[in-house]
Structures are given as structure tokens and as C-alpha cells.
């Protein structure tokens, strides 16, 4: 659990708003390169690495977590050193007043979302519906200086540190989805030097928050036989619909039963979890899962996907809250699945191209 937090803390500190992931790739390569035999960066700015089996004709499993975070993009540089922005990914406006951000321009500078102080507001203003176009980011520079640092199209991300609330609860921006990346990497560490009889590829995909394009194109290149996608899921909070009660923080990692993922793999993963004593919570998702899973599953001739999630509160804000025990459960489950896949899912590996060709 400590190790996952350590990894997650390093990863959440990296830049990489959706569209600007290449800014993080150098550091990603440095941090993660040692865990793989070979690493690659793709034209869509995803990172992927591969740990090869000694058996060159072994099958391939792909682990996926997305690199990009939600954020903003500058649409105008204004008088007084203010910036107007548009959202990248879905973001609730109610959390933005006086929120702190990093602006990734010629150099990275801090900024603050301007908030109208209460004494200047008209009565009833705080109840009105908000729109991002009403907000501006204060940079503290003059317009002339600002224009040398920032342009239309510069990316902006939340600014906050990862920290612990107690021994198992942590808060940070970008746990979506770097916490899951940390869980995947921890799973690989748990394997040590063991050769599980499969090539293991890990993709840190770009552009998930904007169309899943990194996962789709990187999975195409890797061409695995099965994939385990890990993203965050919504943890139950009071006031949420009844059916969300099936995802409780602290009770284990979520396993999604969904028409958009492989039922066979999901049933298998649940069985493995039971046998290994890993706490999991099944959840059902009839439509879009909102994750990379469908993009990976429908790439090429189809790649069966199992979707794991870590329950998370306050998604897409600077204060995403998780129970690290759930991330540990996810890491333990991934390690167990990797150890058993070659034998228990033999039929999947190297399905090859259609013999009907």
C-alpha cells in the first residue's frame, strides 16, 4: 500500500493534460523505463513498455491505464494578465472559484481562477448556473509579459499536492488515472523476476479523456491477446443513486460486468480473486463504461478486455479521494491474473488471423 502511494505520488506530480501528454513523456520514461525490456512513445503521445517472456512465441497481455488528466486550454489572453479557458474533459464549474492551477506555457507558471468576492456580488448570484466562459485565470503578470509565455492553445492543469488523510485514505488531483497506473506497476513489481509465460505490455495511454484515442491506437500497435484495463470508478457517496451502493470505498477493487467487456474474462477474474482472497466488488454497467475498455476491445479483430476500477470520490477535481487498500487489491488481483493467465486462459493466446482468409 505504501509502495503504491509512493508510485502514485510521483505520477500525479507529472504534467499531462489530455492533448499535452508529450510534456510528461520524458519523466515517464525515466521513472518507468527500468521496469521494462523496451519502451516506446507513440505519435499520439502514449507511452508503452514491454516485459518479454523467455519464450518468444508466448502470448501477450496488455495492461492499460491512462496518462492524461482533465484540465483546460487557453482560448484568449486578456488585459490585466488574465486568461480565458475552455475545458478539456468534463469538469464541474462549482469547484473552480479561487482554485489553483499550473499553466504549461513556455515555462510552467502558477495561476488562480478568479473569484468575485462576496462584497461585490449581487444577491442571488451565488445560486445562478455557472459557465466556464464566465471564469478567468489570474496569472499575476502584465498582458505584455504574459503573451511571451502563453498563447491560445496553452494547456492548464489543477495544482495540488498528493497527501494522506489517514493511514489508508489519500487525496490528490489526477488519481484518475495515475493511481491505477501505479497499481499496474506494483503488480509487475509483485511478480519480481518471475516469467509468467506471457509477454506483458503496459500502456500509459494518452487522450482517454477525449475519445480514448491513445488506447485504441497503442493497443493496435501492441496487438495483444487479452487486456486488463484499469480506471477509477465512482465510489458511493450519500445522495448517489441506489445502485451506486455496490461500489464502496475500502471494500475492494471493482470488477465490471458489462456487455462492452469480456464476460468470460470477468467471471474468471472474480473466481481468481475469491481463490486468492482479494476483495472485489462486482458492478454492472449496461452502456458506455466511460473508460478505455471499449476502445481496446474493438481494436483490430477484437481483444477481450477485463475492466477493473478503484473506487474514487470527487472525480475530475483537485481533490480525488481514494482508499489505498482498494488500489492494493487491484494490484494483487492483476498480479494473480498475470500469473495464471497463460495456463487458465490458454485458448486466447495467439488466436491468430482468421483461417477463413
Amino acid at each position, binding site marked *: 500500500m505504501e509502495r503504491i502511494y509512493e508510485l502514485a505520488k510521483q505520477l500525479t506530480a507529472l504534467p499531462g493534460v489530455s492533448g499535452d501528454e508529450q510534456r510528461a513523456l520524458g519523466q515517464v520514461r525515466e521513472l518507468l523505463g527500468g521496469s521494462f525490456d523496451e519502451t516506446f512513445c507513440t505519435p499520439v503521445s502514449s507511452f508503452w513498455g514491454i516485459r518479454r517472456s523467455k519464450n518468444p512465441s508466448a502470448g501477450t497481455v496488455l495492461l492499460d491505464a491512462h496518462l492524461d488528466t482533465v484540465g483546460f486550454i487557453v482560448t484568449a489572453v486578456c488585459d490585466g494578465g488574465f486568461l480565458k479557458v475552455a475545458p478539456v474533459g468534463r469538469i464541474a464549474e462549482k469547484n473552480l472559484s479561487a482554485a489553483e492551477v499550473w499553466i504549461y506555457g513556455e515555462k510552467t507558471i502558477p495561476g488562480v481562477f478568479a473569484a468575485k468576492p462576496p462584497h461585490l456580488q449581487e444577491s442571488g448570484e451565488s445560486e445562478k448556473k455557472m459557465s466556464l466562459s464566465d471564469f478567468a485565470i489570474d496569472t499575476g503578470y502584465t498582458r505584455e509579459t504574459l503573451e511571451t509565455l502563453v498563447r491560445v492553445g496553452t494547456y492548464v492543469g489543477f495544482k495540488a499536492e498528493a497527501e494522506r488523510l489517514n493511514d489508508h485514505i489519500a487525496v490528490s488531483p489526477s488519481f484518475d488515472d495515475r493511481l491505477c497506473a501505479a497499481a499496474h506497476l506494483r503488480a509487475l513489481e509483485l511478480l519480481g523476476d518471475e516469467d509468467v509465460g506471457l509477454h506483458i505490455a503496459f500502456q500509459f495511454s494518452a487522450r482517454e479523456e477525449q475519445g480514448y484515442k491513445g488506447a485504441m491506437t497503442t493497443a493496435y500497435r501492441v496487438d495483444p*491477446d487479452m487486456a486488463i484495463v484499469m480506471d477509477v470508478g465512482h465510489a458511493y457517496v450519500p445522495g448517489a443513486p441506489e*445502485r451506486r451502493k455496490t461500489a464502496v470505498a475500502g471494500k475492494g477493487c471493482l470488477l465490471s460486468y458489462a*456487455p462492452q467487456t469480456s464476460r468470460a474474462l470477468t467471471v474468471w477474474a472474480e473466481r481468481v480473486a475469491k481463490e486468492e482472497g482479494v476483495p472485489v466488488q462486482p458492478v454492472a454497467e449496461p*452502456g458506455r463504461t466511460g473508460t478505455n475498455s471499449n476502445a481496446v476491445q474493438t481494436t*483490430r*479483430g477484437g481483444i477481450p478486455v477485463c475492466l477493473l476500477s478503484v473506487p474514487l470520490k470527487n472525480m475530475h477535481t483537485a481533490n480525488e479521494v481514494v482508499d489505498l487498500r482498494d488500489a492494493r487489491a487491484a494490484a494483487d488481483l492483476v498480479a494473480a491474473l498475470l500469473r495464471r493467465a497463460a495456463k487458465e486462459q490458454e485458448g486466447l493466446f495467439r*488466436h491468430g488471423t482468421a483461417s477463413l482468409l
Partner: protein
Amino acid sequence: MEPQAFFEKLKAYCAVPGPSGMEDAIRERILADILPSGASYEVDPLGNLLVFKRGRERRPYKLVVAAHMDEVGFLVTAVTDEGLLCFDAVGGVDRRVVSGRRVQFCKDGRTGVVASKSIHIQTPDEFGKCEPIADMRIDIGETDREGAEALVRIGDFAVFQPNYAEFGEGLVKSKAIDDRFGCAVLTDLIHSDLAYDTYFAFDTCEEIGCDGAKEVCHRLRPDVAVILESTTAGDVCDTPEGARACELRKGAVLSHMDGGTVYDKELLAFALRTAGEEKIPCQLKNIVAGGNEARAYQTSGTGARVLAISAPTRYLHSACCVAAKEDLLAVGRLTRAILERSLPLC
């Protein structure tokens, strides 16, 4: 294709539970039917069934005829303290066709009832309105959580109860006519003597976004894809003629454009000509709406030329799809006639 046998097969296919994401049972049934035909087949890791049947001659291009195996259905999302089941729809299902229905659980055939508050205990505010699916519950007769959880799990699938019957003058009603009728036409074709080599695809997960079609297309790389589907017929009481899209008893539907695809103009013209020459009744749609797997086949890989031949069907995605027997047979005859000919591809 002997009509009596065709409709018996259609009845059997409609009765098999097979929602998007769990098409195993219907695939097994289809496989059992086609094995004696001598065609070669393959099931891909996602469950799509690909079949190849030799004809008397080879085609210089690859032609795939496709239908989807999956039907719309339901997925259990949670169990309440009172032993009721929270659920959601798989595929596009209007809330109003769900309220008050019976469903059948796929794993053991158990029946569930979608609870519906009697009108006597509704408040005046509730009159006439249908609550969203998230607020509906399935009742399996248990009174507490423990009892329900012993029988049903989160992630279990259910479908509308099987209910095939002939009625009226030459009509049939059933759940899942979309697209089990397409599957029935395909299995008949696989058994017949074909003029040319042809591929047949039984796709999964069409109702949730044509996923199976994308996967199949990547494997087979067709040059031409002919899709057999059900399409909405709006010829019900009070709908003006201009808004009906197509009508029952007017023949197989050919489409020039729908919400997902602009169809190949030459293939469409060829299909119309073929129908004329063979005296097979057909009609064009008169609104641009809906969509089918053609959208996936057309833009997958390096692209394919697409044609859709559809059966006009009322009340799609409900417990009672209604179609005319003569239209279903027309689709079969037109598809066969097209397969007998070499296509005008330049």
C-alpha cells in the same frame, strides 16, 4: 427456403436468450444448425461467428452477408434491502416498454416482473408519467436482500420473455425479431447451393454500438457487405404517411441513407433492379433515421461498399416486434437473388 420451416426456425431463434454481451446460447443454436451444411466456420475471441460457404464459382472480391445475434436486454445493477432488483437496459430501450413487463433471467430462465405502482395508489402528479429505468425495480418474489442474493447476482442478464406468435393476417409478433430473423435468413442461405463463394457473419453487440461488426470487419476485410436488419416501420394509427419511414406488407426495405450510413448508390440501384427482375416486392425508406451495422462495415479497415436489406418491423426494441411474414420472406428472396448474381463492381 420453405416458409413453414423458416418460421419455425424464427420462433426457435427468438426464444433463445442472447442479450448484447452474452450471445453464447444463440450462437450455439446457430452453430448446431449450420454444422450439417459443410460450411467452414470460426468463432473469434469476442464470440462473433464467421462462416464461409463455397459456391460453384469464386468471387474476385470478398462479399460478407451479416446479421447480429444479440437482442436488447437488461442487466442487474444492485439488490435492495427489500429483495428487489435495480437494473438498467442494455441497448436502446424506451422506458415505457419496460414498465410493467415480465423478463426472463438468462442463467436459469427464472421470471421477474418489472414492478409497476397501481394507479389507485399513485399521486395525481404521477398520473400519465413513466419513471426512468433507474427508478424501476424487478420483483422475483423475494422479500429481503438475503433471499434475493441467493438467486440473482449483480451483473446477471435478463431479456424480455419469449412470446412468439402469429396473429392477424399474416403477421408475427415476438421479442427479438430484430435481428434473429436476419440470423434465420443467413442459416437458410448457408444450407443452400450458392452460385458464388460467400462469407456470413453472425455479429455480437450490435445493439450497444456495432462492436461485433467492427471486429469482424477487421478480420474478414470485406470488399462488399450486405447487412440484414430490422428497420422501424412507423405505419401505426395516427402517424401521417410522410413520417412512417416504411410500412408492413410493402416488401423488403432498401435504404439510400440513414443516420449512420450513406449507402453505395450503385449497389442500391443493382438491388432495385434485381428486385424488379425477380418480382420481389420492395420499398425505399422515406425518412432518414436509424442506423445499422453498415456504419461499421463501411468505415472499418480500408473501407467497404455497403448495402442494407431490411425487414419493416413495428415496435422495435420492445417485447413485441411486429412484422409481416411476406416481408420477411421477401428479404430472404432478395438476398438470395443478389447472391446469385455477380455484382457490378468496377
